[in-house]
């Protein structure tokens, strides 16, 4: 159970305060409702590049990190398909420094051309390090554009190709900032050893004067239903053949999402899961095999992925997986469902141990549209019945609804 209070400032900023006086720290977590799903197809990777630029100095502060480190603070950020999330942890007496820094970069960036040049290079190295210079690193670069034909989820957060990063201009940066970085498009969570009153005062003092902007109204293209199986094959210098199956499922809200999530747990979470038991243990075809959902805001993917043992035929392995999916459409074992519900409960409780996680969880629930989801989702998960799982399996686990990738090693 996470307690919190909410306020909306006149400029539209959504403030959530979570008091915890057992910690000597305060966290500020700011979520901007922008991710790669808000990008244009010819300027991909921008939300993430922009995250880097947010550390390159704001209107009145030339360096974000140094004044924060000087008062004992730490910070970082991440970008995904849906959101860009910034967080700061600071010793409680120095919380105001975090308000100063975060509010100044929401007010305006410095738009220094040199910062853009350097961060462009850093992001290109990140692209190489994480997506190109390791085996299987480019899986999602290959798979997304086949699984999604219309929706911006067809490119990964890092971007479609390096050239988009190379070609970003300062005008692009400015217009992106204006569209997405303003109070009405953000959720601020203040958590830790601070009172609601003090958090509100500091928020009004530092964020109150930032002008409201028009809300972004870019329509995001809906993904049409998939009607036939999609397949692709890739060969590369990798140590083992790998198989990926990505099935379309619904969006992040509601019971159907959690039914799909529990279904993926039954299939491939942990060593007692169906796929692991059958195809890693009983009839070994894979060295690893798991299933999970992407958890994206718009309709997402349920993914089954595994690495094959040497000498196993990849088509045979694919058929073996498909055969194991069928029985779940008619019947799900009640004990197995209780097991995955217990796992979900443990995940929820463990996620509440760290202050920063609680702050992020609150911001994300607010982004989804209902802050109290942080406390309500577990009940929703517990209410799911075996019939719901079978229904999810019938709807989702069909070859017609699936993109299959064979990622095979080069012939020697």
């Amino acid at each position, binding site marked *: 159970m996470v307690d919190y209070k909410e306020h909306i400032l006149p400029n539209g900023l959504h403030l959530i305060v979570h008091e915890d006086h057992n910690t000597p720290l305060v966290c500020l977590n700011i979520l901007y409702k922008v991710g790669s799903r808000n990008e244009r197809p010819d300027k991909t990777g921008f939300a993430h590049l922009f995250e880097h630029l947010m550390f390159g100095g704001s209107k009145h*502060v030339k360096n974000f990190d140094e004044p924060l480190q*000087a008062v004992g603070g730490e910070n970082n950020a991440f970008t995904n398909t849906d959101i860009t999330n910034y967080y700061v942890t600071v010793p409680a007496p120095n919380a105001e420094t975090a308000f100063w820094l975060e509010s100044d970069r929401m007010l305006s960036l410095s738009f220094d051309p040199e910062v853009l040049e350097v961060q462009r290079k850093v992001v290109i*190295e990140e692209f190489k390090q994480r997506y190109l210079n390791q085996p299987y690193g480019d899986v999602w670069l290959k798979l997304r554009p086949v699984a999604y034909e219309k929706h911006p989820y067809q490119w990964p957060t890092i971007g479609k190709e390096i050239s988009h990063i190379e070609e970003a201009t300062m005008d692009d940066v400015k217009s992106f900032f204006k569209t997405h970085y303003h109070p009405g498009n953000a959720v601020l969570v203040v958590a830790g050893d601070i009172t609601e009153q003090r958090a509100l005062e500091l928020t009004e003092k530092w964020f109150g004067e930032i002008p409201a902007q028009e809300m972004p109204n870019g329509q995001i293209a809906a993904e049409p239903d998939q009607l036939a199986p999609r397949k692709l094959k890739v060969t590369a210098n990798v*140590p083992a053949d790998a198989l990926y199956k990505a099935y379309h499922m619904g969006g992040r809200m509601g019971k159907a999402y959690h039914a799909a999530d529990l279904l993926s747990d039954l299939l491939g979470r942990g060593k*007692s899961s169906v796929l692991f038991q059958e195809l*890693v243990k009983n009839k*070994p075809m894979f060295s690893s095999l798991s299933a999970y959902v992407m958890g994206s805001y718009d309709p997402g993917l349920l993914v089954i992925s595994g690495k094959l043992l040497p000498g196993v035929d990849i088509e045979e392995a694919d058929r073996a997986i498909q055969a194991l999916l069928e029985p779940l459409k008619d019947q799900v074992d009640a004990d197995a469902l209780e097991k995955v519900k217990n796992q979900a409960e443990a995940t929820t409780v*463990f996620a509440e141990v760290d202050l920063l996680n609680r702050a992020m969880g609150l911001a994300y629930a607010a982004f989804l549209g209902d802050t109290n989801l942080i406390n309500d989702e577990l009940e929703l998960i517990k209410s799911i019945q075996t019939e719901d799982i079978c229904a999810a399996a019938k709807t989702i686990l069909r070859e017609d609804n699936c993109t299959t990738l064979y990622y095979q090693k080069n012939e020697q």
Partner: protein
Amino acid sequence: MPDRTKAPESSVIDLPNLPALQTVHLPCGLDLHLLNQGQQPVVLFEMVVPLGRWEEPSAGLAYYLFKMLTEGTPTKSSEEIASFFDFYGSHLEITPTLDAVNIKLYALNKFFPELVKFLTDLLTESSFPKREFETLKQIRIEQIRQQYSRNNAFASLKFRELLFGAEHPYGLMISEEQARKTQRDDLLNHKNLLCTQPLLFITGMVGEDEIKAVESAFEGFPQTPTPSKRTAFTNTGKSQTITREDSTQASLRIGKTTINRHHEDIHKLKVANELLGGFFGSRLMKNIREEKGLTYGIHSSFLHLHHASYWCIGSELLRDKVTLGQEEIQKEITKLQQSPPEQEEFSMVINYMKGKFLSSFDSPFSAHGLIKSLKLAQLPESYFMDFFDTLQNIKPEDISLMASRHFNQDDITTLVVV
């Protein structure tokens, strides 16, 4: 309107109340180290079994011995064991390391007693079923192949081989061949090593019930004495460049063996290293990432193993800029040795480290790791206080002194995998 041109007032960061470590002597003779911290009904229970590369009868044996723990007993199949842990939403992590095998059990309090009892039963009853062993072995060989194919993972292991020598317990890189050689009989012959006297730790919402649960799980636990450790000589190799196909980046590792945590310089040296390359605002990060854009990241760190410590700077760099990267690293080290940092940079790194110190004890699970490392290295409980004291009292001149003393270049080892 707030004045945005200058930073708000700030306060000095005080020493936090460190969580109180308690030690309970269990009737079975083992000690249980506990931290009662956190508001959520969860615990992390950990057994540290001192069976690493120095103690195991043959290289890589401890890995199989302990990974087979969940694969079967005379009365329970592998699937039943996995289902048991999963059913209670718990998470069992078995991590064989160079110095020990760590067994971590994450559990909701309400299910902890059943789970810990189940775990000790596995340690005494494990039967290493043949088929499961063959599967595990196949997976292990695959993992080794995959690990060695990733430039950065390979570079980190290869660097240790260069530092300690290929025959040294810390330098040895387990080959596919070695992984294949181990037989089920080897496990059966050394079954009793599963019960090698462990060190026990528990963190989270820990009360009487949890202590009792551990107590009764370890009642009558047969304790095998720790096997004696082998002798080994460090045989540092030359610097090396390894060329591989298809690299889009180069992995660089630079470092050498260094002082352990009992040495009087240890805290000051940590500050010097932090400033050089230990955090996001470090000189290496500023120069090589933020100014030159040669890399996504560069880090300088210490690895304190039980029988040796080493210092390593690591980075994945632009493929054709490795030489420039190396020169810049060298320049930064020399600069640090020749002149003490300016007051502004110096106090920034000190305050940053104080804040980090606060947050590292804030989460029960990260406090767990710190306390565990303290006990394993047999450091005094004042160790963390001493560290904080150092942060209060260190002078800029100490930084250059530490850099001159411990970062000198004569016996440095460099590895480039490109």
